């Protein structure tokens, strides 16, 4: 059976490229019987999904509230736009 160490490498790679068929099958078989690697994959995909949702929330005022330009920076940027 594919060692877990190799499986985690393939899990990561499968998030970036389409794995060759043999590797893909070995990985899927492994994940079906290995709860730890299955969990590992779920968590990596969750991190990705969470980051993309965080990014998408950046354009709404209620999204990621508190992360705003400081007053200093705001004034500095406005000034630089008046006298570019």
């Amino acid at each position, binding site marked *: 059976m594919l*060692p*877990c*160490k*190799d499986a*985690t*490498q393939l899990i*990561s*790679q499968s*998030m*970036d*490229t389409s794995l060759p068929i043999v590797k893909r099958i070995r990985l899927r078989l492994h994940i079906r019987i290995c*709860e*730890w690697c299955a*969990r*590992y994959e779920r*968590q*990596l995909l*969750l*991190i*990705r999904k*969470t*980051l*993309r*949702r*965080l*990014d998408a*929330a*950046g*354009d709404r005022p209620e*999204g*990621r509230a*508190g*992360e*705003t*330009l*400081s007053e200093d*920076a*705001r004034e*500095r*940027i*406005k000034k*630089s*736009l*008046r006298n*570019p």
Partner: protein
Amino acid sequence: MSKAGPVDPSEWVDRYGDYLFRYAMLRLRDRSRAEDLVQETFLAALKERNSFSGDSSEGTWLVAILKHKIVDHFRRQSREVSLPDGGLPDSPGDEPFDANGHWTAGPAEWGGNPADLFRQKKFLEQLTKCLNALSPNLANAFTLREIDGADTKEICKVLRVTETNLWVILHRARARLRECLETHWLGRSPEEES
């Protein structure tokens, strides 16, 4: 982002400043650097105002400029990395596997509702810390791939690594980040977090 018509540049900062800042902060995690790039973005936009086609919203146009500036920043940073191959020293001993490649301690079950993760301020704070703990090339590759969904070939050009190396870089970045999040935040149940 509302699809309002173009506004006067003097109003840009109030209308788009915070949005651009959050966009930059998620990718750079450095307040002063993010503010600088937002300023550069507005100045570049001012210069090229006439080239704004109006096909997209003004906000989308400004983000596109900022995105270029961030990638340029990553490109410059990758040149400063002294190690070849994007800084990939062997990292023996810090992997959670035994000699046979089996988990020594498998991933923990993450408590709480994972779907709510992105609403948690603490998650973003911890993520920032964990990403900052990675070398710049690992963090930048991870950012381009996981947040921006950039094509791996494109990332290879920016960071000047081969595709095989990029897979190693991304694997390490993901593994370390996951472990860091688990250790410092996610592995604990919400009750312990108060």
